[in-house]
Every structure is written in structure tokens, then in C-alpha cells.
């Protein structure tokens, strides 16, 4: 591990706000058909939190999200959710990976977003005035108000994410689950999406997202959960979680962690860093083991 400067207290909000538990996974083993993908998971998400799930491909990040969404088979343990008063289940806003969406499906942005409100729209196939007003509000809020009649396949990467974020938000969810929302988008769009999610969280939305992007996304989140080989390896603030030891156990590879003030950088290509081929580092590095 390389530490460039003593880690200063970050500006991120505390990882465990004092909200009531929204979802509690206790000793959960879950997966698909006959195969558990995640084993013995203990995890609690409180109302108002913004947490990220990191780990290598196939480690169980999406399975963790899908388990909370009730889409996996439970082999052992329990999932407890606390819905709002008067409701039987949590209201979920699920944003799948863009790769999983059928972009050739004949849907406009407005039609796609209104699917997230199918229950509230009553028996009619068509939206009422209130639904249309709500749709206009949510699209305007996400900066895609002018795209309501555009085909979903004619959208840019950022517009695609915003569309499916709008579908998740229009149902007034208790919990927003996002599967790799910054995958395959450019730097500017990634920044805009993260800014938008931060705003939503500050407005009270609980968010759990998976990401493979350690430096540009994970290090900026208040709370991180590391998943590796079907188990929860670590859970806490990025300062606590992003250590070479945890990263080695999560990814099965050696990585360097550089700290400067409250900023954290994970050097994923250790060979490059050790041979001086890495990006220029702002301060001399001091090896501290790991």
C-alpha cells in the first residue's frame, strides 16, 4: 500500500446515517436455479444511504441488487424489507445495465418512463392528465423534457441512463437500484450521472448501485461494499474499505492505493506503477506495505 498523505476526514457524508433499516440481509445465500452465487451475506441498507457495490465481473454485484429486488432464489438466510406505512412491499426503482435493454423495441422515452408507473395509472391503457404532468416534471428534472417523443434507440448514452432513471423515479421509489449506471458512457456523461445521483440522494432517495469504476465512481461514494468470489469482503467508507488487502481479496490482484487529502486513487495496473509507466503522481509515494 502506498499512502501519499495522512488520510484526512473526507467531505463525504457518514456511511451509516441514522435512518431506519430499509433492507436487511441476514446470513443470506442466494443465486439462480441450483447454484448459490452469494453466500452468507450480512448487509443492512438504511433509509437515505448512498452505497456502491464493487467487485470483479461475475463476483455477484448484480446478484446482490437482484436479491434485494426479489429476483433471485434464496437458499438460506433472510431478507427483511421495511416498506412505507400502509404498503406490503418496498417500492423499487430498478435501472438495469444498458446492455440488457432491447433498444430496437418500438418505445418512445415517454412510453418507457410511464411503464414505471403502471400500477398507479389504474386500469386504463393510456395515461391520465396527472400521469402526463408527472412525466413532464420528471423528464424536465432530469434534463430530457424535450425527448419525450424520441425513440429510445435514438438516444445518446447519457440520455439512455436518464430515461431509465426517470422510469425508476416516476414510481416514487423507496430504494433506487442501479446496475452499472456509468458503464459505457463518456467522462462528461459519467460526471453528470453521478452529480444527478448525488442530488437525488441529498433530496432523500436511498441508492444502491454497482460499479466497476473504482476511481471515478466508487471512491466518491459515502459507502462501499466489496464483493469477491460470492462473498462480502468488506463494507464501510472508501477510506476504510479501499486497502490493498481488501482489494487483493476482492479482485485477486495486487493494487496500489494512493491517498492525498480526502482523495483516494487505486492503481489497478501495478506493473505500470512499479516501472514508472503509470500516470504522473502528484507527490512522492511511500510504500507502507500490503
Amino acid at each position, binding site marked *: 500500500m502506498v499512502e501519499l498523505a495522512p488520510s484526512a476526514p473526507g467531505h463525504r457524508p457518514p456511511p451509516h446515517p441514522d435512518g431506519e433499516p430499509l433492507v436487511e440481509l441476514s446470513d443470506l445465500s442466494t443465486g439462480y436455479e441450483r447454484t448459490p452465487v452469494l453466500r452468507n451475506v450480512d448487509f443492512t441498507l438504511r433509509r437515505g444511504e448512498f452505497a456502491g457495490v464493487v467487485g470483479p465481473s461475475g463476483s455477484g454485484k448484480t446478484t446482490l441488487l437482484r436479491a434485494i*429486488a426479489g429476483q433471485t432464489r434464496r437458499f438460506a438466510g433472510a431478507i427483511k424489507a421495511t416498506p412505507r406505512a400502509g404498503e406490503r412491499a418496498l417500492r*423499487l426503482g*430498478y435501472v438495469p445495465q444498458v446492455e440488457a435493454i432491447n433498444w430496437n423495441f418500438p418505445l418512445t422515452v415517454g412510453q418507457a418512463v410511464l411503464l414505471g408507473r*403502471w*400500477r398507479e*395509472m389504474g386500469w386504463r391503457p393510456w395515461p391520465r392528465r396527472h400521469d402526463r404532468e408527472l412525466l413532464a416534471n420528471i423528464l424536465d428534472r432530469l434534463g430530457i423534457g424535450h425527448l419525450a417523443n424520441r425513440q429510445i434507440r435514438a438516444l445518446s448514452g447519457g440520455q439512455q441512463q436518464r430515461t431509465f432513471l426517470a422510469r425508476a423515479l416516476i414510481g416514487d421509489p423507496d430504494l433506487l437500484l442501479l446496475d452499472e449506471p456509468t458503464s459505457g458512457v463518456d467522462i462528461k456523461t459519467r460526471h453528470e450521472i453521478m452529480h444527478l445521483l448525488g442530488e437525488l440522494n441529498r433530496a432523500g432517495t436511498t441508492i444502491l448501485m454497482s460499479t466497476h469504476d473504482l476511481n471515478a465512481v466508487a471512491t466518491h461514494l459515502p459507502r462501499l461494499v466489496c464483493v469477491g468470489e460470492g462473498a462480502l469482503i468488506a463494507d464501510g467508507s472508501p477510506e476504510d474499505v479501499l486497502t490493498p488487502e481488501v482489494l487483493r481479496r476482492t479482485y485477486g490482484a495486487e493494487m496500489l492505493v494512493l491517498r492525498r487529502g480526502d482523495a483516494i486513487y487505486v492503481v489497478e495496473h501495478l506493473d505500470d506503477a512499479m516501472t514508472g509507466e503509470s500516470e504522473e503522481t502528484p507527490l512522492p509515494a511511500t510504500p507502507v506495505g500490503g
Partner: protein
Amino acid sequence: MGDLTDPFQFEFFVRGMVAATLVGVLCGAVGVYVVLRSLAYIGHGLAHSIFGGAVVSFVSGISFYIGATLWGVFTVLLINAVARRRQIGGDAAIGIITTCAFALGVALISRHGQFTRDFDAALFGEILGITSGDLTVIGGVLVLAAAVVFAFWKQLLFTTFDSDVASTYGVPVPWVEALFSLVLAATVIASLQVLGATLIAAALVIPPVTARLLTDSFTRMFALAALLGGASGLVGVYVSWFINVSSGATVVLLQGALFAVALAWAVARSRWPGTGSGERLAAIEGAAID
């Protein structure tokens, strides 16, 4: 002029034309969901399977409609059960079960050679042999399909677009799929006498695919597919009278011709985008200003 109205003096012809129109509308509308879920093969398979059911019900002396309905629903449930095994997959499950059901029908016919002629209608359609009882069944299935589509428009749309995500938003996906399977089986049974097992798949697939080439809106695609299906049924049967060709084959060939025209139009539009009315107008206006 008298020649053109000649066929209308025969009640059996009028009945056949009404039946072909209603079946065209029914298959066109139901086919939208079949095509968008990439299940074109199931229409083909189910029609052949239900042919087996028709033979079994004839041999065992029960009503064709009751026997074929039970057989159709049983086949769909069996396909769903087999397809759930990941190492088999949906297309292979359809291939195995429907061809076995068809083979059972063929085996029974060959064992009882004297039945062979009676099943020509089920295989190739016998539109001019439609009875008022058949018309009642076709009308009833059309009303059932319309009621299901109207009442479950949003659930069907969400499930067709993305069944995994639909269930995270609370859509009862297994029930919606079971209901759709029932409507599909009923559609195939009602269409068997008109088009025959060999041509039903075409009526389920061609009008929706043609409509998809002409529009990017789901609602318009649905309406266009029903319209194209109904119109080709009406015109196809009428034309078949004069050219002395099998009615079912004429209907399907007409649908094929409409598809070819739509495809040519779509190709021209994508190769020469400037030929679109909007771009052409803009170009003319631009030239005038310059």
C-alpha cells in the same frame, strides 16, 4: 361489374371472408407480442402441436375446440416447464414438444387412414367450409383477446419489453405470461380452420413485422399490424375467388407482398435519408433561402 360482386351471393363465401378478416386482425394484433419477444417460432410450433390435438380429439370422440384448447394449453405449459432448464433453452423446448405433438397426430392418422381427408382443413385451411359456429368461436376469441389486451395493456407491454425488470416493478410476470399463452393458444385454435396449421405462423409474424418496418411507436405498430392482418384477410379471400387459388395461401402471399413493399420502403429510407418528407421539405426551404 356483376362479376366482381358474384361471390357475395354465396353465404359460405361471405362467412369465409368475414372469418379471414377477423382472424387477420386477431393474428396481427397477438403477433405483435410474439414478434417483439422473438417468439416467431412458437406460433409455428403451436399450430403444428394443436393439429396433433385436433387428431387426438377426433379419435377420442370429443369436440375439436375443447380437445385442441386443452392440448394447446398443456403444450404451452410443457414448453414453459422444459424451457426453464437453462441447458435446454426456449427454442429447443418448442422444437421438441411441438414436433412430438404433431408427430403424434400424424401417427394417429396413418394408423386410421380413413381420417386423412378430414384433416386437410386443419393442415391447409378450408376457409369456404367455415360454419356459423366457427365464426362464433373466432368472434369470441377476438373479444377475449381484445379484453385481455385492453385490461393488461401496461403489464403485457412491460413484460414484453423486459420481463426481468417488469417483475422488480411489481408486474406479476408469470401470471401475465400464462394469460398471454392462453390467448395465443386460443388464437391458433380459432385460426386453424381458416389458415391451416402450415400457414398460421405467417399470419402471426408477417403483419407485425411489416408494421414494425413502418413505425417506431408500439401503439401504432399494434394498430397497423391488426389493420394489415384484417385487410389482407379480406382482400386475400376476395382475390382467391377470381384466381382460383387456395384462400389461406392467397392471404399469406398478399401479406408477403405487403412486407416486401414495406421492406423496400424502409431500405430506401435508410439509404437515402434525404428522401424523407421532413428532410426533403427542409432541403427545399434551405435552397429557397440561400
